[in-house]
């Protein structure tokens, strides 16, 4: 007898086997004549420039995160849009709260300057600071 998990296992097994068999069979029947050009790293038909291990600007991640949030928003709003008529005002309010929170998040990003590519420097306000360790050590050596 097969449980629900068993079905998933068979599904996974089929997926893995399909890929492995396809690659293996292709290797058996294809001709293998490597040339210099064929062995080059492929990058959209262009010659590669430099190492791929470069530092990315952290702003890319912020943009990616914002994109992700709105992507998920669409995924969540489509089923809501399909059924919300059945729920009347309550259903509308639920969707509205969700959209409001997302809008608030967007406003937050905007206000804090995260939508600018070069983030404006925040001005540090001058505050009375406590003694740091260095200051204390300095005073001790003076004394």
């Amino acid at each position, binding site marked *: 007898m097969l449980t629900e*998990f068993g079905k998933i296992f068979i599904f996974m097994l089929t997926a893995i086997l399909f890929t492995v068999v396809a690659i293996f069979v292709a290797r058996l029947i294809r001709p293998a004549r490597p040339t210099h050009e064929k062995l080059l790293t492929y990058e959209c038909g262009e010659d590669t420039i430099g190492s791929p291990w470069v530092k990315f600007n952290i702003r890319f991640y912020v943009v990616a995160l914002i994109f992700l949030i709105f992507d998920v928003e669409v995924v969540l709003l489509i089923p809501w849009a399909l059924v919300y008529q*059945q*729920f009347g005002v*309550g*259903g509308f309010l639920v969707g509205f709260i969700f959209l409001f*929170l997302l809008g*608030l998040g967007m*406003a*937050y990003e905007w*206000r804090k300057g995260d939508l600018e590519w070069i983030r404006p420097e*925040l*001005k*540090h*306000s001058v*505050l009375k*600071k*406590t*003694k*740091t*360790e260095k*200051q*204390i050590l300095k005073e*001790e050596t003076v*004394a």
Partner: protein
Amino acid sequence: MNFQSLINSLQYIKPEIVIAVVIVLVVTTDLIMGKNKSLLPWISIAGLIVASFFVIEQFSFKAVSSNANGSIGMITADPFGAFFKIIVIVSSIIIVFFSLSSNEIKEAFERHGEYYTLIFGMILGMFFMISSADLILIYLSIELLSLSSYILAGFTKHSLRNSEASLKYIIYGGASSGIMLFGISIIYGLTGTTNLYLLNSFFHLPQFGGFIFWLACILIFAGIGFKISAAPFHFWTPDVYEGAPITITAYLSIASKAAGFALLIRFIKVTFIDSVDASGYWQLLNLIDWKSFLILISILTMTLGNFAALWQSNMKRLLAYSSIAHAGYLLLGLAVLSDQGLIAILIYFAIYAFMNLGAFFVVMIIANKIGSEEIDDYKGLGYSMPFLSFSIAVFLISLTGIPPTAGFIAKLYLFIALVDAKMIAVAVIALLNTVVSLYYYIKVLKNMYLVRPEKEMPAVLVSPAAFAMLIVLLVPIFLFGIYFTPLVNLAKSSIGLMGF
């Protein structure tokens, strides 16, 4: 599908709704007011007070929400949860006042909006942890609490120690929540449900037990043990407590731990209970020997905490190890597996919140003044800061558990519960541990009063706000040390969990 039953269930999460609204309010105010952040703490305190009214209302509830199809839902509302929520609210209010006089937090002035938002994120996570009756919600709320606290632990960005604390916390936390999720998935695979009440009825069937089941429970305990910093899941505690801003350290050591304990008690009692006998002892299902397991863990935790604290030279690390030791004592109260043990835990937590917050508060004020948290720098403070030194002496004596402070009452009820359950040997071990703890608490006092400072210290005055805060924290220590009947009565009336 029944939309109305979902709306009806909203009445069980009124405090959580208030907290969520306050998050939105804090963010909006932060955006509108721009550079002026002085309003934020007051909005937070007002929100907490409003939430506390709804929490007090929950003392009269004993209910569980229902799903759209009428089955048992994810949220419970009962006096037990309300008691822990009150502890969380009180410590949150005190932490907001701490933050007002903390130099570390003041320096990160432009990020105050995020600070209060994340604190409320933690509160929301803790509230759901306390009242959840479903493994999925338990996992989600632990994640909500953890994610907020990871960021807060590294809140002062430019300090190296801070970033280290945050990174260590996130690595340990990620690993332990993964382990917990694995345990939950095994339980789900065995039973097909994640609801604690349904699990309990499943476990009455004879076919459960065996190695896989045992493993799953231990894995879930590992996740909760991380939150309450029980050995052997405590390794993050000293480093994170030392590195994090001191307000957050104090908060983690009380509120986060209280929520973890509430969760652990609910998990063990609701899931594994068979019956409660006339004298209040819980008969657990014969699946796992929770009693021996908890005794083992608690003795390990308190011994390790107390002995490691002996060698500490940093005040925050010392308090971190002391909080591990206290988690050990509290676990003993659970190991009794009786209503009496539960009362002892509730009393212990109420008192522990005040004395631990007090100790951290004084350490913070002293660090603000002398810029150091090393015990060696406390030499002669008894003469230059008489009131502060007196307060920390009271808090440390109370943490040890010496009369007439409230810490004595907390330990007294715990030991009575142990002796009544005929766990004399365990009580003796706990008592010996208390004696060990006396040494390192008194070492601090010795440095302050008996050692002359290397150089003359100017007399330092405490600001009126800090003075008022200290009085607020000192009064319960003495009051509950002498007149503790109201607290005991409150604890006795709050042991009711939904279903039992």
